[in-house]
């Protein structure tokens, strides 16, 4: 049983990083494919499409920061807290990256034929990012309450 609890602690420690990265992979792939498609139909503004498609990569960075914040000896005492905070923060980051990728793809698809709405079309992706930031910040705050040993 003790081994299982320790394993869960490690999962919680690495979880935010791994889940955030998985989300970023999926999100960037979705938005990236939309950007590539849009390149075929547009004469200019290619850079901003590619730039927008990289937006879901921030969740990986948040995951890394959460992982380092949670880093401490993994013991029976610390594992439950590490698991709960780490996995939940990771899932939130994963979902926010995937759906942000979807929002970016829609923004690229819409703004390719109507460039003037580009700025406004990013707003939904930015809002989704905001929820990812909430999960990130409060994981840092709540992570401070997990016993150090």
């Amino acid at each position, binding site marked *: 049983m003790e081994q299982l609890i320790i394993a869960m602690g490690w999962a919680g420690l690495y979880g935010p990083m791994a889940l955030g990265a998985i989300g970023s992979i999926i999100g960037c792939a979705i938005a990236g*494919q*939309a*950007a*590539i*498609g849009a390149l*075929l*139909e547009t004469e200019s503004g290619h850079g901003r499409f590619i730039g927008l498609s990289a937006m879901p990569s921030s969740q990986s960075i948040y995951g890394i920061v959460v992982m380092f914040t949670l880093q401490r000896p993994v013991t029976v005492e610390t594992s439950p807290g590490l698991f709960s905070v780490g996995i939940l923060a990771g899932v939130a980051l994963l979902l926010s990256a995937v759906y942000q990728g979807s929002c970016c793809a*829609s923004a690229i698809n819409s703004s*390719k*034929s109507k460039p003037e709405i580009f700025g406004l079309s990013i707003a939904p992706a930015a809002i989704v990012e905001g929820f990812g930031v909430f999960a990130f910040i409060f994981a840092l705050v709540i992570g401070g309450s997990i016993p150090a040993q």
Partner: protein
Amino acid sequence: MSKRHQYVDLLASLPALPATPFGREPLPISAIRLEHRLEALSAVHRDSLRRLETLLDWQHLGLDVSTDAYLQRYRQAAPQLAEHGVNDLVETMLERHTLVTALRRRRLDEPAPGLGEAWGFGPRLAHISAHWQASLFGVGAVFPWLSEARDHLEHDRPRELERLLLEESWRLLTRARRHDRFDFREVVIYWLRWRLIAAWQRYNAEAAERRLQADIERGLGDYGALFAGERE
């Protein structure tokens, strides 16, 4: 990649279609380029699109295809189209064709189709037959465009009728769009909308050619016969 995002690159590579099919702008993408882009579809989806084309395109249907043969063709394609989530689009269009057929048949004083006769498509065939003499076959509330279509048909206004049917299809397809999805259904919706624009432009070109020919003949008047004589 999930089904929801299966064709995100393909759809992003297609230019936006105009807000209405009746504009004067040229087609946003040519048939050849569209065909080329659609090569990105998977083999099964390409097959579904080909089946859809054979169901909807008169060029593939021909005038000698009987209604029975056509319905048989539909029944063969329906399971695959349903599996790919596009069957409802085809059903609605075929039901519209059925209603226009009913209007035409009644205008020719044909009797109501008998029970079991394969004369059209949709869940309301029996209802339409039973209400053959009713002004709108008892389905006017379900299809609000039907009364206008009947008026156009009765007053010999084929162009207006064509425009109304096209507008109705356009409205249906616009409603069916889901902007957060990039799947096969969205590709089909794009393809169908593109076909509507192309159909109207073709129709317009043919009508313009006929009008020009009539204007030339009217303008030439008696000289037309003179020039005809010169040719001889």
